[in-house]
């Protein structure tokens, strides 16, 4: 029971900082902007497709709907959302040290592993809430704004997914995204355990993500061989959720890679946290 109290306390701490709400504000501001943009300029996309295929095919129905916009919005998951997640994850341990609250906190009769576990779970719950908020804003608000419909995906040409199938694929994509964002959060926790202020972990996490992304995308032979070992290589797993057929082998590989990295980062962070000397 104590762990639940600790998690509740950690959540209270996380949500008492204004920066925690930045991710929600970001989504709240940008997603409706996307919908507005698509509702104004969406017909351009339809016109382009009509120009490309119109000689031989007649187009019928709405090409741009909530699913189409939600699919584009998911691209925030490459850099923007990881940064916002790192802001919270990077502060979760280092913030205590910077504020000088560690001494009081760790002298209470609660084991370090319980404190660490509650902080990790609270960070992951925050990550989940961001992904859920992104989903609700993209699909929920989008459904009211633009309505639902078939999803047109560019994969080896044009792939039309019926609305029912698209909804299931979005659930899978958000699930995979949560896993990837959890990986970013745990990387930030790992760095957070090492330092005394939250700026370093945030910069460190983003530097790792951006550098790994850069290396992952360089078409050089040497990088080809090491690419499978970078966790960022599998950050595109959400895009594969919309493929037909779904490449389950790849999704399992990306899931295990993410889980393994999460375990490594949390394990490493716990070892550092457990041996930490609290001197101030």
């Amino acid at each position, binding site marked *: 029971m104590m762990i639940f109290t600790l998690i509740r306390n950690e959540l209270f701490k996380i949500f008492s900082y204004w920066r925690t709400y930045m991710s929600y504000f970001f989504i709240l501001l940008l997603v409706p902007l996307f919908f507005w943009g698509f509702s104004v300029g969406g017909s351009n996309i339809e016109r382009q497709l009509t120009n490309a295929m119109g000689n031989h095919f007649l187009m019928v129905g709405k090409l741009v709907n909530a699913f189409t916009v939600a699919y584009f919005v998911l691209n925030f998951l490459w850099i923007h959302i990881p940064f916002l997640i790192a802001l919270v994850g990077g502060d979760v341990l280092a913030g205590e040290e910077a504020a000088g609250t560690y001494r009081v906190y760790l002298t209470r009769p609660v084991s370090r592993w319980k404190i660490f576990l509650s902080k990790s779970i609270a960070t992951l719950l925050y990550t989940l809430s961001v992904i859920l908020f992104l989903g609700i804003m993209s699909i929920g608000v989008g459904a009211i704004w633009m309505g639902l419909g078939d999803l*047109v995906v560019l994969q080896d040409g044009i792939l039309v997914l019926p609305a029912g199938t698209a909804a299931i694929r979005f659930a899978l994509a958000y699930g995979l995204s949560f896993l990837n964002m959890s990986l970013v959060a745990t990387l930030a926790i790992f760095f957070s355990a090492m330092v005394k202020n939250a700026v370093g972990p945030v910069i460190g996490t983003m530097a790792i993500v951006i550098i790994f992304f850069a290396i992952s995308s360089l078409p050089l032979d040497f990088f080809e061989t090491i690419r499978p070992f970078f966790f960022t290589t599998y950050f595109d797993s959400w895009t594969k959720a919309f493929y*037909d057929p779904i490449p389950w082998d790849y999704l399992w590989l990306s899931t295990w890679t993410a889980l393994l990295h999460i375990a490594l980062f949390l394990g490493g962070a716990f070892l550092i946290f457990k041996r930490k000397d609290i001197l101030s």
Partner: protein
Amino acid sequence: MIRLLSLLLLVTMVSSQPLKSPDEIFKMVRDNLSHIQDYQVEMKIKVAMPGFRMPGKKVSYAFKTPDKVKLETTGFAVVPRQGILPFYNEIMNDSLQIKVETLEYTILEGENVWLVAFQDSLYDQDALIKLWVTDPQGTILKGIATIGGEDVLTLTSQYAHVEGVAWMPVETEMEIVLPARMKTMQHFNSTPKAKMEIMNSMRDTTETPVTGSIQLEFSKYKLNRGLPDSFFQED
């Protein structure tokens, strides 16, 4: 024995028939379609193309002469123009001015058909198109479009006489081949027969072409219900 003799007689009659001019053949097609002022139909479309994948779709289609069209479906769909009424625009607009030729009178799927060939453009390429037109119904049972020696589009249709007004397609299948390297040629001055020979000699068999098919099933035809123009205005 009697059957064999009858078949021989039929084949002899067919082969000895003097060739109709392309104008007469296309007039049969126009006569069949000229009875239609407007129509509505329910279509089921199945697409199996490597570059375009779409689940089976039901589309409501309405048409009014000369060119008003309305389509409705749930979600999004694409409908191949040629699949609805094969070569309707080319024949009704009388755009077949260049080198049309009747090749033979033969039997296809138990029907007497005229084989005509003409030149047109397809996929922005110079194409040779052959049509098998039934006599006397004036329906297009089969059409093949050839580009660079490769049959890029093969269209086969089955028809039913709808409401005693006109022969309309009930099932159409389009087989599409996109050659790896599509060769175009500008030989508008040669006859279709000569062009066919040139195209065959140019045939490129070094790379495997991309193939696919589109099936259309038509049902619930409503012909000449006097659809107003306002019906075709977008909501």
